[in-house]
């Protein structure tokens, strides 16, 4: 069909069919916008995508530019990894929950740490009071890790760790457990989040200043490519940027920008990017605007392929892949009428699968109230299993490829993201690494995200955005769902265990390892070998981070409302 014919037909349809109808009965709104405030047209047709070339821009899965997926068979080969983020209490509690999840058919583990661990503090630190074991598992020393992985063979699971400032410590602990179980290091599979840049933009797990943070991440890359070649050394994350209130476009743009910054840091260090690339992974949010999310995932793959091949000159096609984990949007869950969240999560999970995710976490319906109960976690996992086994969606690859709307929107989202990337590059005078650091320093990212969050909230307040059960279709209700309670004794027990370990361990070996770490940090050497040594000597997370804080200083975030 020629585009000229399409245009003629469209013009005729507008005049003869649409216009009289609109005159009789108008539309619900004057203007339709998606969650990123992109204006959406009434209908899309071939003329909207005539600038998009099938072979160059869409193509086939497993082939450049990977718009349709990174694997040639996608879910016909195997489903995405169903990976529920979980952790609470002491290591024993989480070990038990994990065993339950594995029994229920979960195929990968994903660790939630408590706030003290996330911030690199020990359970007995005064700042940890009231927070030990609350939002995740408490880890002080290798001893806790031994309990956490008791009965879980590391050669048979892959484990993801949502951890950032202490990421190197956790990777060292995992390596130590593997060593103790006799699993060769090149068989260890998993992911550390290890993405500090997005912490400065959004998630705020902040300990060291930006530059030393990037230095340590680069150390982990350098050590990881040699020692744990199947382990994802970073999960470049848009999730938290989105949760902090960004649009889908900002999430995509800032995540890709961060990814470029890390790659540039690795290149500056002299790391072979073709060696590093397979160990990079990404992590995105999946929110309510179904098609925009799908477009975002497709655009992300296409952008990363171009960047790695054309900008950074990666030779191996494997290096052009953007593989990613997805979590449904926590910020979309409502405390009101919590069962409605099952439906939201289903829509978001479907978008992730239609967008070609490699692994998925579905939120539980009770998470606007507390950590999920066992029942709620089960429903969340079953949601994925129903999509996998009953919906038929995984039978064909990228079923929305070629949709006029989805292709138009994929292209639109990509263009808007490129605009942001060019702004960031300008801030760095050509360098994405310098640009991202400059944007942290001058508040660019925080302002962009905060403004989007406020704009969204304003529209909710004014009932321009409807949230079912919140500003429309509300009811009077009393909460009836069971809420998970964390044992209040966890903190006391955890502190007791830490004291016992500190008394029993070889404190000379601990001191030597920490001294080695200090000197490595001071002399700009790789900190991973001394961290592994310290971990194996049962030095605590707080002690190891303490040395890094001494050498590099700490960071206080400027206040921007």
């Amino acid at each position: 069909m020629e585009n000229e014919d399409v245009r003629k037909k469209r013009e005729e349809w507008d005049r003869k069919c649409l216009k009289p109808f609109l005159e009789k009965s108008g539309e619900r709104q004057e203007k339709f916008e998606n969650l990123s405030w992109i204006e959406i047209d009434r209908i899309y047709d071939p003329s909207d995508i005539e600038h998009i070339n099938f072979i160059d821009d869409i193509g086939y899965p497993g082939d450049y530019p990977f718009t349709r997926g990174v694997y040639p068979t996608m879910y016909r080969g195997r489903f995405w990894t169903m990976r529920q983020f979980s952790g609470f209490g002491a290591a024993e509690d989480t070990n038990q929950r994990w065993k339950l999840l594995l029994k229920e058919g979960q195929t990968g583990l994903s660790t939630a740490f408590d706030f003290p661990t996330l911030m690199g503090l020990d359970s007995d630190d005064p700042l940890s009071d009231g927070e030990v074991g609350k939002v995740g598992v408490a880890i002080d020393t290798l001893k806790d890790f031994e309990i956490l992985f008791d009965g879980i063979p590391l050669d048979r699971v892959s484990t993801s760790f949502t951890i950032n400032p202490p990421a190197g410590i956790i990777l060292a602990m995992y390596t130590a457990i593997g060593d103790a179980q006799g699993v060769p290091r090149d068989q260890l599979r998993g992911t550390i989040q290890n993405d500090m840049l997005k912490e400065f933009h959004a998630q705020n797990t902040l300990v060291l200043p930006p530059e030393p943070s990037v230095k340590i991440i680069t150390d982990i890359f350098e050590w990881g490519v040699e020692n744990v070649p199947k382990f994802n050394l970073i999960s470049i994350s848009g999730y938290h940027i989105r949760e902090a209130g960004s649009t889908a476009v900002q999430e995509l743009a800032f995540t890709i920008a961060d990814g470029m910054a890390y790659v540039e840091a690795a290149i500056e260090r002299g790391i072979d990017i073709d060696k590093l690339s397979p160990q990079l992974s990404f992590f995105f949010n999946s929110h309510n605007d179904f098609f925009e999310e799908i477009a975002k995932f497709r655009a992300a793959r296409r952008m990363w392929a171009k960047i790695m091949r054309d900008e950074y000159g990666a030779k191996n096609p494997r290096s052009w892949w953007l593989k990613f984990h997805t979590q449904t949007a926590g910020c979309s869950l409502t405390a009101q009428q919590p069962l409605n969240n099952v439906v939201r999560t289903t829509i978001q999970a479907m978008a992730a699968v239609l967008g070609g995710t490699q692994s998925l976490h579905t939120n539980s319906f009770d998470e606007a109230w507390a950590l999920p109960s066992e029942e709620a976690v089960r429903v969340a996992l079953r949601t994925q299993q129903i999509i996998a086994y009953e919906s038929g969606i995984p039978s064909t690859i990228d079923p929305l490829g070629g949709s006029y709307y989805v292709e138009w929107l994929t292209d639109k989202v990509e263009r808007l993201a490129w605009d942001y990337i060019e702004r960031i590059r300008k801030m760095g005078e050509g360098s994405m690494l310098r640009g991202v650091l400059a944007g942290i320093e001058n508040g660019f990212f925080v302002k962009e995200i905060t403004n989007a969050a406020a704009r969204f909230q304003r529209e909710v307040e004014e009932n321009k955005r409807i949230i079912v059960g919140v500003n429309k279709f509300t009811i009077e209700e009393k909460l009836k769902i069971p809420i998970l309670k964390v044992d209040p004794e966890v903190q006391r027990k955890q502190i007791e265990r830490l004291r016992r370990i500190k008394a029993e361990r070889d404190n000379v070996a601990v001191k030597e390892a920490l001294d080695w770490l200090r000197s490595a940090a001071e002399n700009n050497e790789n900190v991973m070998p001394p961290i592994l040594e310290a971990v194996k000597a049962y030095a605590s997370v707080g002690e190891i981070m303490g040395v890094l804080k001494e050498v590099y200083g700490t960071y206080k975030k400027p206040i921007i409302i």
Partner: protein
Amino acid sequence: MEKKIRVLVAKVGLDGHDRGAKVVARFLRDAGFEVIYTGLHRTPQEVAMAAVEEDVDVIGISLHSGAHMTLVPKVLNYIREYGGNPDELVVLVGGIVPEDEFDELKTKGVDGIFIPGTPISEIVDFINQKVKEKRNKA
């Protein structure tokens, strides 16, 4: 003219989730209150000191960490220790708080608890009414 209502919006503890606190702070400011935001990762002592020094009418503590039962009473105790009177303040908690803990928080001196999805206009009305009650009592 009556004195402008002063509000301290506080993040206490290790939790970095500041979207709610910042959006609420911005909207309260737009509603005509004087708003002071503490920034992230404040200790209970720092928050209490700010409340006393800034002589606020309202303190809104935002938590997504599950540590509210420990940290909120700590803030109120330190306010007392630093010479303030938490009973004269309107004390609000926002964030992730299970409903079955509302009563206990209220017996510990919290006036209002606002969960995700609360319209900010509701918080504004609550503050206006409560501050009036407390000022009349004082």
